[in-house]
């Protein structure tokens, strides 16, 4: 916070848009987001859709992990719950897949609540182990649902009023609308007393209890809300994919999501998550697709297939140790440096 900048009212100070740069960012961001389909085609539009899907999931995990400090290695499994909800409802009951997305959120929220139960007693590593177990159990259950093949969702359930929402521009705008709503809600949760309660539980659960925060309920909420986001993301993923299979929601995906939050900026639910997904999903996918042929050409196929997880693991470790506040803090420091430049103090 630069010295000498004072807001007229507390309301203005609490607003999402506080500085001219915020308004400029909103303007540029909305124009870019709304016009993206004009210049992003095919593969790149898919990338944009996947970015939003993983952004929603990462924001959910950022609420659970970043705000409330509850480690979850089962976030991908929660996404899976959303995806399977949409797929099964569409396939077995003929429910419209788009309309099933809120139900996917609710189903995963319920599962998130169940996952929160161990957190009432366990912390840190033990909680992580509990969620790991949950991830494996859920993966197993998913593999039982459709053992050999993907569940493919009937095309006609992906339509509303004759518009097919399973790909391309309609899916892009659907995902954009959902993303905007959920990001706003997350930012609201973070800036209000609920967000403070979560952070209080994260920082010092004993003191949180003393100031009258219901620690158990707050933990349950953090998991439940996180689950809701994961479920909606999974539901969108089901809409986007030709078929839903358990391979999309493995432990590795959970770890990727964890990496997005930890590297992007834990506790910074919107911007931190965005950075994390941008680097680890969008950035990585494109890097991979350009590097892989090169590595394979040099006969280094093994490196090509494992490089991702070596780098991801290293990055997570480096950030936890050196920059626990994530990339967003690095950006802030750069900004501060530029603001004060050429005076380095």
């Amino acid at each position: 916070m630069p010295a000498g900048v004072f807001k007229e009212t507390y309301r203005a100070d609490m607003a999402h848009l506080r500085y001219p740069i915020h308004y400029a960012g909103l303007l540029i961001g909305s124009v870019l987001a709304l016009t993206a389909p004009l210049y992003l085609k095919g593969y790149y539009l898919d990338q944009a859709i996947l970015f939003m899907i993983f952004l929603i999931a990462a924001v959910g995990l950022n609420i659970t992990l970043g705000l409330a400090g509850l480690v979850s290695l089962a976030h991908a499994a929660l996404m899976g719950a959303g995806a399977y909800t949409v797929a099964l409802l569409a396939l077995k009951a003929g429910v419209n897949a788009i309309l099933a997305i809120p139900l996917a959120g609710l189903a995963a929220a319920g599962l998130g609540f169940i996952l929160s139960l161990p957190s009432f007693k366990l912390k840190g590593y033990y909680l992580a182990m509990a969620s790991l177990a949950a991830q494996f159990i859920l993966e197993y259950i998913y593999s039982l649902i459709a053992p050999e093949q993907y569940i493919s969702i009937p095309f006609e359930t992906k339509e509303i009023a004759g518009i097919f929402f399973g790909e391309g521009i309609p899916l892009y705008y659907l995902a954009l609308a959902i993303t905007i709503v959920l990001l706003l809600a997350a930012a609201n949760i973070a800036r209000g007393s609920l967000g403070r309660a979560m952070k209080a539980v994260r920082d010092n659960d004993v003191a949180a209890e003393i100031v009258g925060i219901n620690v158990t309920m707050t933990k349950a909420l953090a998991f439940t809300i996180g689950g809701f986001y994961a479920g909606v993301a999974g539901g969108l993923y089901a809409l986007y994919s030709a078929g839903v299979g358990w391979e999309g929601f493995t432990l590795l995906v959970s770890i990727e999501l964890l990496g997005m939050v930890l590297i992007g900026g834990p506790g910074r639910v919107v911007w931190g998550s965005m950075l994390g997904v941008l680097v680890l999903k969008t950035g990585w996918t494109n890097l991979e697709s350009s590097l892989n042929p090169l590595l394979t050409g040099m006969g280094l196929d093994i490196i090509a297939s494992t490089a991702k997880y070596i780098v991801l693991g290293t990055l997570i470790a480096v950030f936890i140790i050196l920059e626990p506040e994530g990339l967003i803090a690095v950006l802030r420091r750069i900004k501060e440096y530029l603001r004060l430049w050429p005076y380095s103090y």
Partner: protein
Amino acid sequence: MGGTRLSYDIESWKVDRVWDKGDLYRKKEYERETLVRTEHILVEFGGIRAVDDVSIKVDRGEILGIIGPNGAGKTSLLNVISGFYKPKHGKVYYKGVDITRLPPHLRVKLGISRTFQHSELFMGMNVIENIMTGLHPWRKGNTLSYALWTPGVMKWEEWAREKAEHVIDLLDLHEYRYHIVGSLPPGVQKRVDLARALAQDPEVVFMDEPMAGLTREEKEDLVRAIIEVYETRGITFVLVEHDLEVVTDICDRIIVMDFGKVIAEGRPDEVVNHPLVVKAYLGG
């Protein structure tokens, strides 16, 4: 509380009443009301009696000191009063009402606030957030209304922010508003801790060793802040302290504990010369 009753010369650690003590006490007699009273409190930890049959009372408008050597049971007693420990025996009353079973945050709502010996602040949150967290017991609205940021939520958040800003003024914390508490020096953290308690509009504040670990300058700042709040807001203070000098200078009355028991009680000058106290502090 009526007009100013204190003057203090912080340099020489002397805090004197403007009115003579007799007058002050007479006046207090007149408006005396017991805020907090404990009756035969017993707290045990695996056979150790941390608090052993302690009955004390705290009157409105006084600054009460509780002193005693390490492990005397001061913090445990405070934990019972603030509701964090359940006593094995005994009762806690607030304005004559039995609150022994009341959870901590409801005691806060009644008007009993406290600070902590070992900082119980939220180290990853900034100063404003820390103070506003103290207002949690008054929170309104559910998850959905927070996600939607309804007008009701907005209004409550503004109200809470105003309260926070008020104590930020009172304790001169302006420059630290947006600082992450974990990065602040201990002296400022103690002030934030006090600010969080004061934002709750308490009638009585229990402070657990507020001076511990502070430099002389930081102590002076904190004493000045406490006295200013005492004067302007009429808040009753209970100071648990190791620093005898501070306690004897600013307290009206002192309770001395040792091995879980109250061994002496009275005015500062009476207490410091009490043989048991001398023994506990020097002979122990």
